[in-house]
């Protein structure tokens, strides 16, 4: 007979189930990327996923660490990394991104639960800085012009133009990295995550609301700002990463607010057209401080009279 410390029962949640839910939530956007950018997009996703899992396995094997079997977190990182790449990217570059994400950002800092920033975001940033040209060779939607793999600007780059009809922005039939364009699919995934209680809607909502408000104040069209670039992808899937986001409600509000402010600052007043990934990286680094400053107050924390 077993003798153990209480509690004697546990709920049926697990890290594996959480990661599976995230993968399920990413599926609509995977399908959308296949429709919008063609098979090549799916190939990039497959390569990054396989590379991420392989790097994780290899690293743990070489370092004689227990192999993290089946927690699926490397799969999630792989998909998110691919979502941040243009479908035209040479595959070897995608593999380098996977190496940076898994080995440098995740495993060297201690593996699952110890990374200081979102691995996929840093992978993307390293690639963007190293291969700026290829990383901004956005493909146009395949079915639109009939021309695949043509370098072109996203709606954000092309000015901030925003001549595209909102519906087209919403459905994602425009240029961009392969996972970010279809806001509809990303929202669907977000609803799934919230419904399954995997994420709290606080960070995405605060982030989006902040961007909308600042856009209005800055004289930009809020809906265009919300639907273009990596905002939806970042707000729903990257900013809600457990390890690199705050614990408490207040912390999440501060985090979302900071993300919105930095994103808009970069989009409107800096040299770069897109600010989501830098905003998330910067705010990731603030998380320990936010957590310290926004701790919840225990019941009975009041002074005894």
């Amino acid at each position, binding site marked *: 007979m077993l003798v153990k410390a209480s509690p004697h029962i546990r709920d049926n949640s*697990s890290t594996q189930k959480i990661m599976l839910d995230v993968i399920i939530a990413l599926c609509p956007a995977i399908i959308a990327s296949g429709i919008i950018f063609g098979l090549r997009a799916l190939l990039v996703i497959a390569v990054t996923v396989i590379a991420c899992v392989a790097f994780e396995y290899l690293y743990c094997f070489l370092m004689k660490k227990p192999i993290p079997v089946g927690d699926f977190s490397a799969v999630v990182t792989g998909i998110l990394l691919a979502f941040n790449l243009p479908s035209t990217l040479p595959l070897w570059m995608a593999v380098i991104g996977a190496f940076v994400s898994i080995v440098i950002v995740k495993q060297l800092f201690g593996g699952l639960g110890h990374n200081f920033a979102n691995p996929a975001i840093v992978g993307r940033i390293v690639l963007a800085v190293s291969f700026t040209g290829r990383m901004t060779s956005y493909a146009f939607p395949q079915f639109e012009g009939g021309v695949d793999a043509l370098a072109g600007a996203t709606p954000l780059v092309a000015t901030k133009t925003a001549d595209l009809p909102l519906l087209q922005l919403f459905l994602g039939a425009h240029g961009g990295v392969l996972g970010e364009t279809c806001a509809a699919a990303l929202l669907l995934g977000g609803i799934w995550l919230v419904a399954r209680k995997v994420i709290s809607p606080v960070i995405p909502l605060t982030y989006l609301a902040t961007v909308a408000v600042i856009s209005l104040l800055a004289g930009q069209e809020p809906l265009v700002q919300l639907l273009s670039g990596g905002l939806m992808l970042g707000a729903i899937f990257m900013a809600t990463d457990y390890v690199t986001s705050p614990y408490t409600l207040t912390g999440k509000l501060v985090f979302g607010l900071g993300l919105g402010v930095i994103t808009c600052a970069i989009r409107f007043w800096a040299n770069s057209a897109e600010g989501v990934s830098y905003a998330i990286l910067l705010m990731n680094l603030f998380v320990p401080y936010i957590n310290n400053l926004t*701790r919840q107050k225990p019941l009975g924390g009041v002074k005894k*009279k």
Partner: protein
Amino acid sequence: MKNVFKRAAKGAHLPHNKNTQNISTVDLPVPEKILLPMQQHIGAPAVPVVKKGDQVYVGSLIGRAEGYVSAPIHSGVSGTVTDIRELQVSSGARIPAVEITADGKQTVDPSIEPPKVNDYESFTTAIRNSGLVGLGGAGFPTAVKLTMKDLSIIDTLIINGAECEPYITADNREFVENPQDVINGILEVKKWLGIKNVIIGIERNKPEAIDTMFALSKGDPSITVKPLSSVYPQGAEKILIENCTGREVPRGGLPSDVGCIVMNVSSVAFVARYLRTGMPLVSRRLTVDGSAVVEPRNVNVIVGTPIQNLLDFCGGLKGEVGEIITGGPMMGVSVMDTSFPILKQNNAVLAFSRAESALPPVGECIHCGRCIETCPMGLSPVIIAKAYNGHNLAELNNLMVDLCMECGSCSYVCPAKRPVTETMRLAKAMLRKGAKK
């Protein structure tokens, strides 16, 4: 209304498994032998007043309360004292225990008579002599709880009928089977302590109990029946006080600091019966349930009966048994040996199958923050674990880890299946030891 910016304190949503809720209590036959450990309460162990070969009766004093925080222990059978030996209890301590072999006649001790109560002093003396301890599980001597220097600061008596642990329905059956005892007990406590308001807190998953209490307390405006949401740990003293009165018991303080006394419903009903009959606490109702029990039910058991008798009475066990616990699945204690006796504060005996009690493999913390959101006390287990690992006493003090009541909610919700509650226990001990230096 809770301030969600202050703390989430969502509590845990557990499966209720109140399978025995509507089954009437049955009496367990008198066992051949009972074993009475001299510590069945929080505080100093009682001292045996009998010796081997003594003849004892139902209600005879076996152990005398020693010190202020202690409780006397009485025999639930008539028979002969056949052994006095040391017994290792769940805390690890070795406590003297008196074995009594029953003669089966159940002769009542001739000295048993209703106590004479005519003021506050005689009331608390009577409660002290009754051997009553908190029957909800903690086992704190009731007389100590009711004794205070300044009675005028107490304005509210809260009756704890939350029974928030899964499976257990013993308190629910007390409401349903002995509602008049509950009311009479409340009136006695209220009268002798001069308390103005009474709140009976019952979780909403006990509709019959709520209805019964509503009907009985209708004529008395000082008694309020308060249905509470069925969220664990609703019945934890400080949580119950907050949800019934909105008051916050300060760190290191007692319910009396916010003008409250909290009593378990079975305890308060016992007060009424004791004042009527004078029979001390020698038996109690408890729930026998769990996936490995053939016939789950509520049973009236003589204190000191071996756990094995109780399990046999409920049809025995089925399948491969993994774990037997006394108390609820969240805060109960693993039983090492089924010959161990039932104690006063045990409100359940649960037996689980091997599959159900297996320990899940532990993974890395993914910082999902569920322990922080769930903690009913608004503590931050994941941050506390970090301070514990870093031996940071000042930080543990800032984080107020001493407020943790070890309810188990943090471990329950952890997706990585980490032993969060155990870390909290270790952190509390670290702070306690460090503070002494």
